[in-house]
């Protein structure tokens, strides 16, 4: 029983690393722009397919992380500055913008579906013997995924705490009008936010398919609920909170799958979100109010 628990926690950390990368990207963007971007999952899919196409062209799968990240960054920037800003200037509020992102996400999904001919494609990287640490069995790929998640978390925290752009980003997330009056170039900060969020989005798509070993047009959208849940659970705009929430959700789902039934593992993960929203709803609800201004 003890061995099963330890093993499940380890598996939970692997899962959490995948969720956390996406959730950190999602929460940064939502925290600053106030756009609940439901096309996030679709952009993950685009990033994943970019890495797949790179692999087909002989680009190493690990370089595919960069390919996917850059693709996600470019697509997100184009959508953010080219589409979302257009709607925001025409008076779209939080809910309307959410519908716009949802519609765009569907357009992207069905475009990918048409181009990919509705097929599932294999994305196989490192196939190596598993490593054993007592009751814990993990593969080298999973260890790399955990290390990647941790590295991105530390890099992001460092960026936000110690860099000039990071401080500007935090200031804008807290109070955009005050930040603007303090001389912060808000337009540039928003661009950086779209790029950073998009890069993490594309990167998360590639990490996802490295672990799941396949990519299809629903890849990102299937994953989106977990990402949104972790971002909301961790407190909107807080990468650290998103990472902690991802860890909690990852461990809970794996422990429930190990001791209970796998059908209830996802239910348990979202159950945490429901409980937190019941006990601490203020931070999320204030963010979602109709009066919230979009910063695009």
């Amino acid at each position, binding site marked *: 029983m003890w061995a*099963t628990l330890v*093993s*499940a926690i380890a*598996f939970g950390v*692997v*899962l959490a690393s*995948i*969720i956390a990368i996406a959730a950190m990207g999602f929460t940064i963007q939502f925290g600053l722009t106030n756009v*609940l971007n*439901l096309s996030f999952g679709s952009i993950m899919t685009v990033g994943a397919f970019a890495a797949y196409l790179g692999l087909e062209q002989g680009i190493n799968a690990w370089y595919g992380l960069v390919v996917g990240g850059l693709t996600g960054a470019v697509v997100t920037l184009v959508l953010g500055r080219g589409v979302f800003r257009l709607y925001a200037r025409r008076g779209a509020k939080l*809910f309307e913008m*959410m*519908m716009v992102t*949802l*519609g765009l996400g*569907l357009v992207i999904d*069905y475009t990918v*579906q048409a181009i990919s*001919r*509705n*097929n*599932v*494609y*294999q*994305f*196989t990287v490192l*196939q190596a*013997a*598993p490593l054993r640490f007592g009751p814990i*069995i993990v*593969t080298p*790929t999973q260890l790399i995924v955990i290390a990647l998640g941790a590295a991105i978390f530390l890099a992001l925290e460092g960026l936000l705490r110690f860099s000039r752009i990071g401080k500007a980003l935090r200031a804008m997330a807290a109070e955009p009008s005050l930040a603007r009056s303090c001389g912060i170039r808000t337009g540039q900060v928003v661009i950086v936010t779209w790029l950073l969020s998009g890069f993490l989005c594309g990167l998360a798509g590639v990490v*996802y398919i490295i*672990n*799941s*070993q*396949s990519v*299809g047009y*629903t*890849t990102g959208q*299937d*994953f989106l609920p*977990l990402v*949104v849940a972790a971002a909301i659970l961790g407190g909107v705009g807080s990468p650290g909170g998103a990472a902690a929430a991802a860890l909690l959700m990852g461990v809970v789902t*794996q*422990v429930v*799958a*190990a001791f209970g*039934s*796998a*059908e209830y*593992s*996802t239910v348990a993960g979202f159950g945490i979100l429901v409980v937190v929203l019941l006990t601490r709803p203020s931070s999320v609800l204030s963010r979602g109010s109709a009066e919230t201004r979009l910063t695009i």
Partner: protein
Amino acid sequence: MRIAITKQLAIAAAVGLVITGCAATGGNGAGGSGKAPLTIAGVVAITGSSSFEGQNQAGGILPAIYAIDHQGGVLGHQIVYKGVDTRADPADALPAMQQAMATTNNIVLVAGPDTASAPALVPILNQAKIPMTAVAGESVYNHNTLPYFWRLFPPDSANGTAMMLWAQRKGYTRIATVFGTDSGSQGDLPGVLASIKALHATLVANVSLTPDQPSYLSSVRQVMAAHPQVIMTESDATTAGTFFGELKQLGGLVPIIGTEATFTAPWLKAVHGALGSSFQKYYTGLITAPSKTTPAVTAYEKAVTADKSQVPSPWQSYLSNPFSITYWDGVMVVALAMVAAHSVSPAVFNSYIPKVANPGPGKTIVYTYAQGVAALKAGKQIQYFGATGLINFNQYHNSFGNQEAVGSNGGSQPVSLGTVTAKEIEAVSVSGVQ
């Protein structure tokens, strides 16, 4: 919640638009006979995680329509195909079917419905007097009494029993089951579980997989801890690729016996990619036994090849796809029934379906639509011997034959490993399912 509801509404609207668009543009063009075209509605999942259903169907039906239309159609009517997307969900299937019935004239056949939408759609279709060649394997239809329901696919319980009989033949007694929680995958599970019990094997783990999760590590460990000799499985391609990839990576791979639904191009491709060279060694699928080379098989292959630009890619995968071949036969039988009845009215030709398919004294065996039409015109009674082999509807409108254990090298061409006969399957007393 607000987000979720809004998203569902938007998805439903978008899917409706997409399906309507596909329906408006997806049919074969009708010929210039002056008679209104007849519609075959394909009622399966066309999008979503079970979208392989739609591919399997298109791979069999479009060539059948091609072959029939190139013979002048049915009684002068050309045939068109209309996709009705169930998304493997009754909530999507019901409005989609209602819309199709309200906006489409001359539906002479519903190819489907699939397992997930059958409970909602079968009664409606039967009431509307539309013949259906259902893909639903549930045991509830083993003793069907609805006149417009026909099933050429083996019931799920038969496939499950065949899997267990094959496992027994291989000496496996410790069985783990790994099935997706989607309704399509769950259909075969009761038959497998009941057969394990009936044949006195031991079920060491019964694992369910929620589709499309990023990882199934705890489920993998659960299976490994049970030390099974074999895993019996069905899930969608993505889920299977992830699960078996993780199983292999953690060193827990054992022989895999898959249901008929696993022997489809997406599943084979996904799991072959995850297992690499181990795939051929570990995988066996139990499928409807392919017919030996007959003129019916040749006609099917010829039509698929001729219509390869219309079927979903890769077109070669349908040459041996048991689902596609069965759909082909369903269309051929119904087309010949219309010719035999001299009517395209379902209320008239429905009763002719077994008359043109089942064996009987003095009947002329035909293998193709053209042969059937010629024989009927000559005043003969016919027995259509299909590309799947003998078709023989019982009193419950069910017809199924032997099951074949097949391997694969990752492609869709089955490599025969042995046969489990219908007689062997029927001899197993599986309580509660059959």
